[in-house]
């Protein structure tokens, strides 16, 4: 496991949330490995993956945390919202109930994260056209009412998956470039500062702000 400096200019942490079974893990593997696994396993706790994309000639690295959807795991997964620059809230367009949970997920994210987090609403499984229970305009309406970005994807046929991640990363990039990062002394990051930005891990992030008295 040699330390490889895989050359990137910016590093952003993103979380995937949404009800159990909406396809978070497959959306992630479609994006990071271009794979879709029919025999995928339940995510327990959190899973991690990274990918690098180009935005305006800059290499942006995404550290993505895929979280378990079940209520009881909230204690573990919540810690990962903190310090995340962006979040994708997923629902399954063929299951109304997963769309109805979106509001709860949004509330949860807002309560546990920095305010300027970029949030995108993602209607997944758009390939299941015959079983659709949530219309595209319903998703759109919810997103615009809450100031979220919106997209419909299919991890199965790969449609819009890269677009979804590219869009959110671009938006984060634009937002972060417009103002100083993380509220600390750091200005807009460059390659040198990537090391600092890496400390978007909830633990360090927090300890830096609070300066613990131990």
């Amino acid at each position, binding site marked *: *496991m*040699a*330390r490889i400096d895989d050359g990137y200019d910016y590093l952003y942490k993103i979380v995937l949330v949404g009800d*159990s*079974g909406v396809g978070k893990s497959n959306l992630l593997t479609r994006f990071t490995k271009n794979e*879709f696994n*029919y*025999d*995928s*396993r*339940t*995510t*327990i*706790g*959190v*899973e*991690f*993956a*990274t990918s690098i994309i180009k935005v305006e000639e800059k290499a942006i690295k995404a*550290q993505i*945390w895929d979280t*378990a959807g*079940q209520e*009881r*795991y909230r*204690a*573990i997964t*919540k*810690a*990962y919202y*903190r310090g995340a620059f962006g979040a994708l809230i997923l629902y399954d367009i063929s299951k109304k*109930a997963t769309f109805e949970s979106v509001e709860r997920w949004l509330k949860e994210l807002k309560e546990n994260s920095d305010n300027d987090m970029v949030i995108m609403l993602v209607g997944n499984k758009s*390939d*299941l056209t*015959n079983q659709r229970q949530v219309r595209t305009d319903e998703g759109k309406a919810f997103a615009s009412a809450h100031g979220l970005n919106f997209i419909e994807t299919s991890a*199965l*046929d790969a449609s819009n998956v890269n677009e979804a991640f590219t869009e959110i990363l671009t938006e984060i990039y634009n937002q972060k470039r417009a103002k100083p990062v993380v509220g600390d002394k750091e200005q807009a990051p460059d390659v040198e500062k990537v090391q600092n930005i*890496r*400390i978007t*891990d*909830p*633990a*360090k*992030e*927090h*300890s830096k702000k*609070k300066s*613990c*008295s*131990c």
Partner: protein
Amino acid sequence: MTSVSPNMSIVSLELGHKTSRDAEADLLDDGRGDGVCKEQVQAEGMENRASKNLEQKNSVMERKSLAACLKNEQASNEEKGMALSAMHKMIMDEDELDAMLELGVIGQVCQTLRGIHVFQKQVDKPGNALVDELTKEELNISCSGIRCIALLVNKSSKARTHLMEDKGLELVAIAALEKSMVDVRVDAYSTLATMGIWSGPRYALKVVETPGVMKCMDYIIRDENNEFDNMLKVSMVDAVSVLASRNRARKVLLDYEMEHSMRDAARSASNSRAFNLAAKASVASGALDGKTLNDLGFLVEVSDNDSDSSSDVQLVEEEDTNVTRTPSKPALEGTEVYDNVLRTQADMLNKDGNQGVSGRLLELGDYLTVARATAAATRGGSFSDTDAAATAEWRSLISGDPINVRRKNGDGAHLKALARQGIPHSLRCEVWPYLLSCTDLSGSDVYEKAVSTGVSKQIQVAIDKDITRTMPEHELFWAGGAQVGLKSLRAVLRAYAAYHPEVGYCQGMSSLCALFMVNAETEADAFHMFAAFMDQFRFKGVYSDGLPVMYELVEKITYLGMEKVPAVMDKIAAEGVPLDSFLPVWVMTGFTYYFPPTLAFKIWDIMLVEGNTDMFVCSALAVLALSEAIIMSGNMEQITLWFQNGFAERKTGIVDNPELFLKVALEFENAAKIEEVDEEPTCGIFSKQHPLRGVRRLPRRTFEFVHRTGRRPFSKLAERRRKPS
């Protein structure tokens, strides 16, 4: 298809995946399926189309129309026959085979075969049908169908599950006994052998109870007319041995007096080529019935007759079956004979690219162990093989009244030592219930009551979402399969949620439940073990609201990790890898998620005997300790990925060497015994300066602290170590 470049086959595979939902929909929709079929079949004729399209990379339509043709009641026999033979050609290609399976092709083949009158008659009176009774088309269909089945079951565990569930084995047995189908007899026999060898606990009984199967097996093993080659006989003997390792199936085999055929086969083997058969047959007859194999003298007698070198013995299966007499050599020792048998077995398995090979290897290795043990037991234990002695001992331990084995054995030192060698896989479904003291429940109606109680819609939905995502690589739980395992898993999880509403259902429970199901003879057994485990090992608390016991275990691992493998923990802390990105998964799935079954089962063997969850803690520490060299040069991402699944990949030397792993894990055995920390710790979160100092019961609270403050418990420690002042 085989000439297609790798990229191309990926493309076609993807296409197959992409459209499989559509394809299912098509097949469900009769009208549409038939329409496609009629147009295409009648327009150009299947055979023609098939050969043409085989050259093309996109054969999705091909597959669908073949399947649809079989399904079409109006298609003529001639068309069906052609469709089947086209299918047979197609599935020679493994990618095609997989895609065909997705379309439920075994079911279609069985259904088609049932349409032929030969397959409708009673299997009790086989061998009487005359060729005249079958039209040429019917014979054509029968032969192609059987060939398809043989090919499918040989290559795919999914196909085997399908065949069992579709009751297709019965059809194969008919074909095997049918004089008119002499052309495909070998295909049918080899299918029977394959099904026997690969029958898990779930299907063993079904296989032997399928009408005609025993007759075929007996016929081939006896081979009175000298008509079968060694390879087939060896496979059949293997099949019997595997089946004999299952209690209920063994009873049926004994009723059929199969041990006599085995013994005869072993005795009649008179040269080195047949040596392997002989050795296996004797082992198998031992597995069937200890009395038949009076002692190992019999085996040595067999080996006396033949084989000039042990390497020759190993090669038996690889070489041609043309038999030549080789000079004799001194008798092999009993162990050597067995080793050779085992090695041949392993070689065979290595050639098989199927999933779950390791599990099978274990299972196959095990019936031999059982046989060894039985032999050892009958000889008064003089056979110097610790495995054998252990197996015999397990048998005697569990043969008494159903009582708590752990308690019965006093301090259990002996039992613990036994468990560390691993409980033979074929005995697990008997030993585990004993260890969990739930054997007496198997006759009770606890399970039925729990099943009938029912659970809320919400829990049902949560369970349904997970069952197809639990051990999907295991054929019992493969969603595209016959779904028996899935139905049982769903039933047991629902029953448990009803039985213990305060626990209900939490993700992770399905993994444990599946583990028990793989090692149980019946659904109710799995439930009883699952419920007993949750109670006795405090695992209810792992899954109940707030996951308290999970945090406790994770914190114990963290604490001991800092003490025992400080370099690793410092590195993890220094890179900012969150511990809860991997430790909870290990605990909540009982070390089944990333750990190969061979290792996971052994961890569980030890833990069930010890009676507490220390073994989980030890196993986690072992992963950390064994990872040290690798993670030292890694960054946060690499280390996170390493602990999430990297370490579990093949050839990392962590989990693919169970012996080493368990040895390392057990080094932490004493350390793991701590329940509370009595002394004031001297560093990190445990130091006097820390706000939480003085907290005795560390686990849960420290973890809550971590979540409240977002700080890792030992980040200070790591900092201090980095900057020695």
